């Protein structure tokens, strides 16, 4: 029993390190991993997992931003304009969440990510 708990803790720690690496290395995608870790490994329901993932990703992003800044890789170009668009977008997205989210939206999004990924690798 005790061993199982320790093993679960170790798996969670490794998954958390991977989440951090994704956030730092790619500046994105960590949240998706964090949601999976919170749902599957920590047993949170979907709603709490999505909320709690933000609690993890916000400080992690600050850490990553600090490293980028220290290393002279941070650019503030267009940040304000992008943020200005993003805020109302996320409100609308949160409102649409219950109504529009479906298997097919998820799949369209998956195909778009695949296409962008292939294009980036070429």
């Amino acid at each position, binding site marked *: 029993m005790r061993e199982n708990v320790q093993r679960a803790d170790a798996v969670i720690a490794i998954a958390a390190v991977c989440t*951090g690496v994704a956030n730092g290395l790619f500046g994105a995608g960590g949240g998706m991993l964090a949601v999976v870790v*919170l749902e599957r490994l920590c047993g949170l329901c979907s709603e*709490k997992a999505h909320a709690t993932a933000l609690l993890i990703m916000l400080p992690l992003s600050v850490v990553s931003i600090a490293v980028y800044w220290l290393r002279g890789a941070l650019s503030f170009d267009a940040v304000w304009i992008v943020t200005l*668009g*993003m805020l109302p977008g996320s409100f609308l997205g949160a409102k*649409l969440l219950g109504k529009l989210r479906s298997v097919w939206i*998820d799949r369209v999004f998956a195909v778009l990510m695949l296409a*962008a990924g292939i*294009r980036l690798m070429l």
Partner: protein
Amino acid sequence: MSWLWYLIAGFASGILSGMGMGGGTVLIPILTLLLDMEQHAAQGVNMLAFLPGAALALFIHRRDGRLEAKTALPLLLWGALGAVGGAFLATFLSADWLKKAFGAFLIALAFAQWKRSGKKKNEK
């Protein structure tokens, strides 16, 4: 008129992040592929733009009791370690290689998203 595209890119990725589908995975390719931003810069912009909305959402989630701080703490500490390592690694990679690695990461996420898409509905 490029400011308009930045605004639209932010808006589109905001919708997706609001729906819980990860906005940065959309915003970064738009910034690099369509708006010719350098890869590191795009990644930094995504994280910076994420902060205010995330802070606001956290405030609401806290009020509504959806945050599990105790569960988050170990993930936060281990994650911070990974973030430092990942961020340093990113700054030592050339924009070209980072772009390719990001592409591979997106492809992996795409497959994961597809696999998860069937199961999502039964959960709630």
